[in-house]
């Protein structure tokens, strides 16, 4: 009995491994689109949390990618050959461990030409070395931590970095004439900590009080906000995650903080304003793009998005995923190659690509995009309004 059990187990293990293994496709070949019988499918991998507390971000992200897929009509033309394109969405549950698994799967098994995502810096930091070692270009969407692209020359990002965003927020506050600020941040979250540090470093005024909370599990911020209200600051910075912001804005108003509120780019999610309700009136945030923008690329994106998903408006996740994917597709088209290295070089060479957020140029040394930020503001109905553009 025990022997049988042990044997069966061994068998199951080895078979399951071998079975899955044998189905592995060869890595992206370097054929340059010679007139073969059937054109090779171009696979692009996407890594997002589709379950777990970050699942909302993943949902917007996949929707953003879907817009580009529609736009491409399912094909990318390389050297005059129409290659079918396949987007492979992989769930990383917002965990670093799963992200590394998913990267390996996409690179080794699916043979993707490039990976778009993930949205969290921690996941990008954990899995970045895998893409780097495999020589697979990787464009992170929302990973704003400076260290993400320092992993190596295959790692790019579509968003701006924490120090820039913090500086933008600080500059905006100074411009508005705010002399004193208070901050409440999530000490369990790297994004929040990074943004807070960057803001403090560039803000010329005085930071009157800093309060912390740990994690987004229990959404009671009353004490921290009451303490900050006692400081009577001219502005409140909430550099926090979108699942927390709605309630924070609401509770800040209830706690008697009447000053203007400034948030990071994660506030660019319609759900924040929906949850905050009327309290969202006047909340300003740093954003990569403005849905109001009259630029054709922006308008086209928003229209295409709404056409595909009539119930919602795009948020930053959707938009950045769209841009990151666009960068990859542009690189494939312009490098006219299905070779990962060629794609990497092409991404690095992006100069003046028209994206919804404006014209984007890749800084080759840091592999961060050089792009401006806009300051947006919610009104009482939760509609966003353009306030200002800040360029690096």
């Amino acid at each position, binding site marked *: 009995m025990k022997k049988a059990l042990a044997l069966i187990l061994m068998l199951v293990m080895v078979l399951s491994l071998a079975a899955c293994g044998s189905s592995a496709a060869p890595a992206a070949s370097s054929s340059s689109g010679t007139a073969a019988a059937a054109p090779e499918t171009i696979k692009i991998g996407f890594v997002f949390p589709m379950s777990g507390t970050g699942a909302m971000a993943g*949902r917007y992200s996949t929707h953003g990618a879907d817009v580009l897929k529609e736009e491409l009509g399912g094909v990318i033309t390389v050297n005059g050959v129409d290659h079918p394109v396949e987007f492979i969405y992989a769930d990383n549950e917002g965990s670093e461990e799963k992200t590394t698994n998913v990267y390996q799967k996409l690179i080794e098994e699916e043979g993707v030409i490039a990976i778009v995502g993930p949205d969290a810096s921690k996941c990008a930091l954990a899995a970045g070395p895998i893409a780097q070692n495999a020589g697979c270009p990787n464009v992170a969407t929302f990973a704003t931590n400076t260290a993400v692209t320092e992993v190596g020359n295959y790692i790019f990002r579509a968003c701006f970095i924490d120090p820039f965003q913090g500086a933008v927020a600080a500059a905006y506050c100074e411009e508005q004439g705010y002399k004193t600020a208070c901050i409440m941040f999530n000490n369990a979250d790297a994004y929040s900590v990074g943004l807070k540090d960057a803001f403090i470093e560039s803000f010329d005024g005085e930071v009157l009080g800093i309060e912390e909370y740990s994690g987004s599990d229990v959404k*009671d911020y009353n*004490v921290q906000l*009451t303490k900050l209200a006692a400081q009577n600051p001219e502005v409140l910075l909430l550099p926090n995650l979108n699942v927390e912001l709605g309630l924070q804005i609401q509770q800040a108003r209830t706690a008697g903080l009447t000053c203007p509120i400034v948030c990071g780019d994660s506030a660019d999610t319609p759900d924040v304003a929906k*949850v905050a309700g009327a309290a969202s009136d006047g909340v300003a945030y740093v954003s990569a793009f403005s849905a109001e923008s009259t630029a054709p690329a922006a308008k086209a994106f928003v229209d295409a998005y709404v056409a595909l998903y009539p119930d919602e408006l795009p948020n930053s996740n959707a938009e950045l995923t769209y841009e990151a994917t666009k960068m990859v597709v542009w690189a494939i088209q312009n490098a006219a190659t299905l070779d990962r290295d060629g794609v990497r070089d092409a991404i690095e060479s992006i100069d003046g690509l028209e994206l919804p957020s404006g014209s984007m140029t890749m800084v080759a040394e840091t592999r961060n995009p050089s792009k401006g930020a806009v300051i947006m503001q919610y009104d009482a109905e939760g509609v966003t309004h353009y306030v200002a553009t800040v360029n690096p």
Partner: protein
Amino acid sequence: MATILQYLVYGLQLGSVYALLALGYTMVYGIVGMINTAHGDFLMIGALGTFFIAKLFENFHVDGTYPMLIVGLIILIAMVITGGIAVGVEAIAYRPLRNKPRMIALITAVGVSMFLENFPRALPFIGPNPRPFPTLFINRTFRVLGASITSTQVIMIVLAALTMVALDRFVAKTKIGGQMRAVSMDKDAANLMGINVNKVISITFFIGGALAAVSGICYASAYPQVEVYMGSWLGNMSFVAAVLGGIGDIRGAMLGGFILGIAQIFATAINSTFGYAVGFIILIIILLVKPAGIMGKLTIEKV
């Protein structure tokens, strides 16, 4: 002074959520002896359910809220649905394991919890996005001794206290309450005495689920955002509260919930950097002083 009172109100607000949830936790534990880690997800179902039920009643929507009667109806429907789901979960997943080691039921509950969270998430019309919770209770702010208290907070705290008293009386005085006590002491003996143990346990789960729905509605009224993962950590905290008060004891659960809420708020108030850790340190200290929780009696095994 006013600040301390204000913090106390916040503590009671958070504590009442823990307490309401812990009541269901502790009842189930007291009667079946299992740790139902999916209990927090019943809270989510209650809150999310209320969101959708309220949508159905949109025609009655006036001045940003609903008439009292409709609110009562919405809450009742949510309680019945959540209680029903709790009963269903018990019948399908827990009943077959009743005589198995309790860890087995615990792991099953982890699986159930995972299912209850991920199933609605995977449904396209629910999904993972947080939603604003409709205003069910009229929100007015009172000023008492310099502290501002909202009507929602008052409703939550009073509701929690009333529920505790009602539950306590229910278990102590009614026939079914007596049967519950009998089942909690000895299932087999209760069975021999002609008590329908399955029925009693089903009723317990129904009450637990309904209470979770109420706490979900309270939580979502105070922190008006609903999403599918909202219950998991709250469930853990209410388990902590129930154990702190002495698991299996209804008054203990209540006390544990309020103590936990107040401890967390005051720890945060003193230093928000360490607040989170300090809350747990207080917990450990209390347990070291009272090894069977605050209201729990240390059962000395007779040799």
